[in-house]
């Protein structure tokens, strides 16, 4: 069994990395070795010891290569009701031949765009996993939405993952949107692995001024995934970025979401819902950085935890000295359905400006017994009453999904879960 605290653990992956993006990879490798994987006591990974989990689970630290994906598989994997553009990935590699060809947009394998400034948004020194990805990713995608283009139909980023004996899959996507562009991405993975695997994902989003970018993700791929993702975006003047993240399954999942508000009158929204059961462990770490005046951030994460599941929420808000007139709101609410379920929640506000409106709050409790009795007293079956109350709790997050077909899909998954499991 390998020991991940040793720096050479991932050598096999690092050595096998492609030869492109040489300076970026070298920088990342150095940073990764300097940081090492976060040990048990590392503050940022205190409740989510990915390193320990990997040590216990993964035996073969090599990169999983792309495999063949059939047209039928793609078709059958697209969620019902979806209308839009599909971008297909196989173990992180972009497959243009199975993807929609969208006129006016530039979409290609990342390896074909060697001038891309990877790592300029998701900086390697911030997170060892981001560094590991940058040092050793196989290939990814480059997506460029030109200035003023309003892509009405959403993009489905459909990733097929299959690893043998617990290999490592490292997707990497670079998205740039020109000034005044509007675009929606839906991120969904399909797991074809039979055993545990490690997914280490990085998405960098670079928006121009006055852009509207929506990034929706559903994590519902199965019980085998040990997953770390770093999603980071730069938000410029007069722009709005909205992320909605729905987590329904996984072994151990860590989502790092970082928003950098870099221009005034910009708005960053972060919404999340985690419905967990079994032993699933989901950790959402969000970070919003208010660097300029007159920007707004809104954050709402909600969790329902059953069985022995574990949820972690850590929401950082930085308001820098120059960021006067900031509005920053954060909320995390949890319902525990079992005595063995655990939530660790931590708001973390650092405010250096003096003329700001910031609020945060977190609650963790049980299902409201009084409300349950009220519904029962009107003749509604107890199980159904519970489902109704839990759905009402969860629905507040889902209504932030503006893409109708995806919202409906998520609602159906959530209702199914609340009806059957809870």
């Amino acid at each position, binding site marked *: 069994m390998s020991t991940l605290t040793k720096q050479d653990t991932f050598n096999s992956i690092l050595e096998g990395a492609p030869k492109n993006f040489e300076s970026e990879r070298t920088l990342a490798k150095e940073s990764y070795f300097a940081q090492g994987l976060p040990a048990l006591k590392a503050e940022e990974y205190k409740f989510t010891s990915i390193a320990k989990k990997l040590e216990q689970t993964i035996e073969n630290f090599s990169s999983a290569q792309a495999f063949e994906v059939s047209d039928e598989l793609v078709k059958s994997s697209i969620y019902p009701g979806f209308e839009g553009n599909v971008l297909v990935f196989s173990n992180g590699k972009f497959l243009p031949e199975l993807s929609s060809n969208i006129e006016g947009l530039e979409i290609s394998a990342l390896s074909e765009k060697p001038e891309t400034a990877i790592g300029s948004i998701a900086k390697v020194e911030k997170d060892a996993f981001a560094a590991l990805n940058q040092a050793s990713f196989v290939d990814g995608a480059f997506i460029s939405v030109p200035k003023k283009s309003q892509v009405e139909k959403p993009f489905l980023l459909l990733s097929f993952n299959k690893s043998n004996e617990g290999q490592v899959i490292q997707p990497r996507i670079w998205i740039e949107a020109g000034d005044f562009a509007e675009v929606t991405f839906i991120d969904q993975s399909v797991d074809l692995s039979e055993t545990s695997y490690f997914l280490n994902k990085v998405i960098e989003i670079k928006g121009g001024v006055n852009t509207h970018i929506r990034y929706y993700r559903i994590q519902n791929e199965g019980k085998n995934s040990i997953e770390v993702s770093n999603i980071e975006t730069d938000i410029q003047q007069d722009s709005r970025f909205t992320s909605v993240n729905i987590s329904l399954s996984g072994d151990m999942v860590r989502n790092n979401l970082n928003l950098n508000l870099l221009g005034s009158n910009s708005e960053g929204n972060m919404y999340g819902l985690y419905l967990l059961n079994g032993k699933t462990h989901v950790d959402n770490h969000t970070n919003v950085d208010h660097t300029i005046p007159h920007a707004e951030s809104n954050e709402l994460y909600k969790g329902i935890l059953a069985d022995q599941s574990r949820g972690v929420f850590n929401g950082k808000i930085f308001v820098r000295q120059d960021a006067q007139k900031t509005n920053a709101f954060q909320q995390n609410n949890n319902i525990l359905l079992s005595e063995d379920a655990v939530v660790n929640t931590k708001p973390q506000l650092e405010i250096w400006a003096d003329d700001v409106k910031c609020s945060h709050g977190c609650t963790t409790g049980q299902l409201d017994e009084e*409300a349950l*009795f009220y519904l029962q*007293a009107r003749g509604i079956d107890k199980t159904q009453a519970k489902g109704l*109350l839990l759905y009402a709790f969860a629905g507040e997050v889902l209504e932030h999904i503006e893409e109708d077909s995806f919202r409906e899909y998520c609602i159906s998954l959530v209702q199914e879960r609340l009806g059957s499991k809870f």
Partner: protein
Amino acid sequence: MLSIKNLHASIEGTPILRGINLEVKPGEVHAIMGPNGSGKSTLASVLAGREEYEVTEGEVIFQGKDLLELSPEDRAREGVFLAFQYPVEIPGVSSTNFLRTAVNQVREYRGLEPLDAVKFLSLMKEKMKLVEIDQKLLSRSLNEGFSGGEKKRNEIFQMAMLEPTLSILDETDSGLDIDALRIVSNGVNQLKSDKTATIVVTHYQRLLDYIVPDFVHVLYKGRIVKSGTKELALELEEKGYDWIKDEVDSKATV
């Protein structure tokens, strides 16, 4: 219709009801009065099936069935309705969806076809008039942001929709202004028939000017210590509860 015999109930080991006996027949209105803490709301809650209360002794037979054996939802389906003293606000649950679910589950239990959207809405419109409740209110989340009066009117509206056999109104009058009280009472009176019965739990006589009881019972220390007709309520209004307390307490000390 309802027969309560020697009912004892406690909460967290503290006895609240200490031997209640009550017979309610179809067509009757019974008022349960009493000072604060006498067990009035406990009685209402126990009949509706609130779980925190433990029934330690006695029986409750409702239309030939052992009520205490039934779940709260089955009691509602059998025709027991509790209008809550404090109706619960439930954000995210739409009033209309909630009611439709409730009405159809009750109908299913009673062997009736579920109402489709059209029939349900027309039933709703009809019953809304009864308590002068506004459509706008019902398009909101259940009781969320409702005023006290609106919540109580919504309780009676729900009662109208579910067509119970036995309605228990728990302090429905508390906090209502005279207009709201009149509307709520009107609603209750119009729903009365010779097949249904009503138990009105109240602290004040005022409500009984509008919903006229056939019997008035005074609850004190978990027992019905005095029963009479509507004149008893007027006497209580005039003299307060102290004379009854004195009467009971002096007997107890003898």
